[in-house]
């Protein structure tokens, strides 16, 4: 041992305390850096020297810089961040939908339905009133427009969600590439045996970001890299390699997520995608919106049918001089019943019949014919049956797009009644509402009021034609039947139309409320886990300042050692002179 060893101990101490201050400054500098784990210099004693008097300490040395990190809490936090992001995304998307169906505002569909039925009551009170007729048509139009806009908004949101999903998948691919890069850097950096603290923090941060986008599971390998998989199974990152996701829409317009694996191998992993923003976007787009849409369509379909059935049985103030059906068949030689082109083909009742009543130009009943819908009757058969039954009175024809058209001949006009076959309403003749001409499920989107009625409000059915062909103007029986629909359990699920609509709105409201409750609950869980994480990894400024003083004082003391050693040397040297 020598004085020089004091100097070397002091020099090592100075270095060690300086590293301590540097680590503290790194911690203070990163106090607000997200995902940063506080670090600490690890000081150990230098190996002791064997002296005749035994082992003598040889100062300090820096063993390394470690970070405070609890992988278990980090993993739990990662999972909960993913779930929270899932429900928060559901909530924000559902709140948009709920806004379209905001029944707490004025002029909502519920009110419009009430108004619509009430206007039929008003018409029943005064069946000859033209203002009442206009009001029925206007309310019908309002209902149609409201359902159109709801359906349109749902479809629009479905389309917009494709963009969100594209962004999600792009971000996922970027993040997985980034994680693979970080894996590479960490493995390289740690080859020397020292932990790559900051790189690991960055990687954990990237894993959390990825979790927000899609549900994942990950685990660390012996070489310091992490493997990342979709919750369902497909590997996204393995060591220094990453594989991308892509998507397209399938035949049902549903999102299909594919995994681009090694060697050009691809696989449909839609079922494996869950959680995170992507999971939420797909869930809203392909599960919730279609469900609301089909609820809406079922309601509108029943509304169209019930209203049209009553209208088609009735008569307004005047007969038709000509009319054309709104529903067409693609093949006029195919049976009408269950005709796939007719949205209400299943309602047609073979063996049933309907009656056509004919008035002359003075409004006197001159003829009538009852047409029976025989088994397997086609549109052409029906046309021929009408032509044969009322020659010189009514001419039936089929348009190029398969719709039935009827024309009164020689100034005759005609009306309908006693339809037990449902064929009149099913072909869209003498109907109130219209929808798409061919069978599909877009009832809410295409609901409209029959132009034959809006052009001539006198055609709105208020009464019925009696078996002698009389149709007095004061007859309000059909308007009363129509108004009765309000309280009849004829909507979807055996509910009234209002109840069915309220049910749908309730479903949307409850879904939104549930998502928001879940999101809030999970936000609390995430907060708690973040607190737990911060209690291990977070930087406390006061703690760092205390440590700063600690290292500063030690540094000062070590400096004192050097001056002391220097004095020792000087003492020795002065002995010589």
């Amino acid at each position, binding site marked *: 041992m020598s004085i020089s060893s004091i100097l070397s101990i002091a020099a090592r101490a100075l270095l060690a305390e300086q590293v301590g201050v540097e680590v503290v400054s790194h911690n203070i500098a990163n106090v*607000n850096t997200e995902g940063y784990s506080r670090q600490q210099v690890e000081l150990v004693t230098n190996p002791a020297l064997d002296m005749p008097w035994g082992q003598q300490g040889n100062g300090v040395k820096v063993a390394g810089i470690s970070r405070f990190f609890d992988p278990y809490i980090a993993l739990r936090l990662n999972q909960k961040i993913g779930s929270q992001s899932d429900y928060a995304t559901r909530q924000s998307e559902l709140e948009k939908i709920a806004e379209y169906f905001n029944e707490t505002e004025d002029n909502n569909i519920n009110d419009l339905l009430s108004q619509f039925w*009430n206007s039929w009551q008003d018409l029943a009170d*005064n069946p000859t009133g033209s203002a009442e007729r206009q009001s029925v048509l206007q309310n019908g139009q309002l209902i149609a427009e409201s359902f159109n806009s709801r359906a349109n908004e749902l479809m629009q949101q479905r389309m917009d969600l494709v963009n969100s999903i594209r962004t999600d998948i792009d971000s996922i691919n970027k993040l997985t590439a980034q994680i693979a890069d970080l894996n590479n850097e960490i493995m390289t950096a740690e080859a020397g045996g020292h932990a790559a603290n900051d790189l690991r923090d960055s990687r954990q941060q990237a894993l959390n970001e990825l979790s927000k986008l899609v549900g994942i599971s990950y685990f660390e390998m012996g070489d310091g890299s992490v493997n990342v998989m979709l919750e369902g199974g497909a590997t996204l990152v393995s060591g220094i390699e990453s594989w991308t996701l892509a998507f397209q829409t399938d035949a049902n317009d549903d999102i299909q997520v594919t995994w681009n694996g090694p060697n050009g191998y691809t696989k449909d992993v839609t079922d494996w995608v869950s959680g995170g923003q992507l999971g939420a976007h797909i869930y809203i787009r392909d599960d919730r919106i279609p469900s609301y849409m089909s609820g809406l369509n079922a309601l509108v379909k029943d509304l169209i049918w019930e209203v049209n059935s009553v209208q088609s049985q009735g008569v307004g103030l005047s007969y038709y001089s000509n009319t054309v059906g709104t529903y067409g068949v693609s093949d006029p030689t195919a049976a009408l019943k269950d005709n796939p082109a007719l949205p209400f083909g299943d309602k047609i009742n073979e063996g049933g019949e309907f009656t056509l009543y004919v008035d002359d130009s003075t409004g006197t009943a001159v003829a009538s014919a009852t047409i029976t819908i025989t088994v397997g009757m086609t549109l052409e058969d029906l046309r021929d049956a009408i032509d044969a039954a009322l020659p010189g009175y009514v001419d039936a024809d089929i348009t190029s797009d398969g719709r039935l058209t009827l024309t009164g001949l020689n100034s005759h006009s005609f009306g309908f009644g006693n339809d037990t076959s449902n064929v009149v309403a099913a072909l869209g003749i003498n109907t109130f509402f219209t929808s798409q001409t061919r069978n599909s499920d877009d009832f809410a989107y295409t609901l409209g009021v029959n132009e034959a009625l809006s052009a001539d409000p006198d055609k709105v059915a208020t009464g019925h034609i009696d078996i002698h062909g009389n149709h007095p103007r004061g007859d309000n029986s059909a308007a009363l039947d129509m108004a*009765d629909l309000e309280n009849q359990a004829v909507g979807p699920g055996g509910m009234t139309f*209002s109840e069915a609509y309220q049910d749908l709105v*309730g479903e949307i409201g409850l879904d*939104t*409320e549930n998502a928001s409750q879940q999101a809030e609950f999970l936000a609390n869980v995430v907060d708690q886990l973040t607190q737990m994480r911060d209690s291990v990894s977070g*930087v406390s400024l006061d703690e760092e300042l205390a440590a700063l003083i600690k290292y500063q004082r030690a540094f000062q003391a070590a400096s004192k050692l050097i001056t002391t050693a220097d004095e020792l040397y000087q003492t020795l040297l002065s002995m010589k002179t």
Partner: protein
Amino acid sequence: MRVTLPTMYNSVVRDLQRLAVEMQQINESISSGKKYNAIYQNPLDVQRAMGYQNNIDLIDQYQRNLQTAESWLTNSEATLQNIGDILKEAMTLAEQMATGTYDADNRAAAAKQVRNILEEVVQEGNVDINGQYLLSGYKTDTPPFVWGNLAVQAAALSQTATSSFTGTATSGGTYTDTTARTYLAEVTSGGAVGTARFRVSDDGGQTWSAEFTTGAAQAIWGNDGVDRGVTLAFAGAGDLAVGDRIVVQVSPVTYQGDDNTVEVAVSKTNRLAINSVGRDVVGGSSGGVDIFQVLYNLQTALENNDQATVSQCLEDLEAVNSNILQYQGDFGARSQRVTYKQNAYASLKDRLTAGLSAVADTDLITATTDLNLVQTAYEAALYSSTQVLNLSLLDYMS
């Protein structure tokens, strides 16, 4: 547990945000007056509110319907009251003229009075509201009674449930007598036209003629077998059934309405008839108890100075009067039902409005109290945050 700066900072931000959201919701509910402003704030209450709103709208509508009913019924009742008063005049006159103290001149003068009464009844019967005739059935655009000479009126066919006849029964001929009469034909054996047979009565079904066969126009007569020029023809498809009736009236007044009663909806399950068929109440062609025929016959009897027939007419007038009174009572009862319903709906609407208000309207007292609480909490959080976040070791380091 270690508490770090981010922990404190995050929890301050989170708590302030939570309080801010709460404040915003309370503020919105106060300013809009509605408890909920989105369907997800309380889906069940929102759904209940929608149900309440539907029912309130419906009751508003029933109240409107009841107003229509009320105006129809009170007008009809007043009309019958007037007709009843006019009839009393006719009865007083008939009573006087049935005694032997009056001579032919008196009776001729009285006949003119009866003629005026007859025309007045026609006018009264043609009562309308805004151009809608109350006693015409569904044919509200047509005045129910039209005055004319004594003539064979159109046949009125009333079919039994089993009858499938879709054709018509047509009356015709030129009436050769001076007394108004009602011929009642009744099908006695069913079948198509040409097969079905019927008999005829001219005294309301007390006595009957021999059977006739349905077919082209043929003279018909009652039990006395006297041909007074009335004919009846059947044409058309379907089978007549036993019990189908055809009424052919010889009357100075034609009933132009039909046999339907106009109804309005007064509750989810009930409809209320707001008129009565004119020919049943007052008469006109094919009416059951026909004021016009009786008055016409009274006039003729007075002109002919026929004291015995005048007494007979007095009896008929009494029958007619009791018929009018019966319908008047019927209208009164229906008006009462309307009043009862109106009251019931008024109180039901109050209850529903209160129910709606309870689920949908902001309770201002609770809301302002809540707002105060949240405000205090927010201020306290701000205060304590600034206090805690300001503490630092730095303040004590030189």
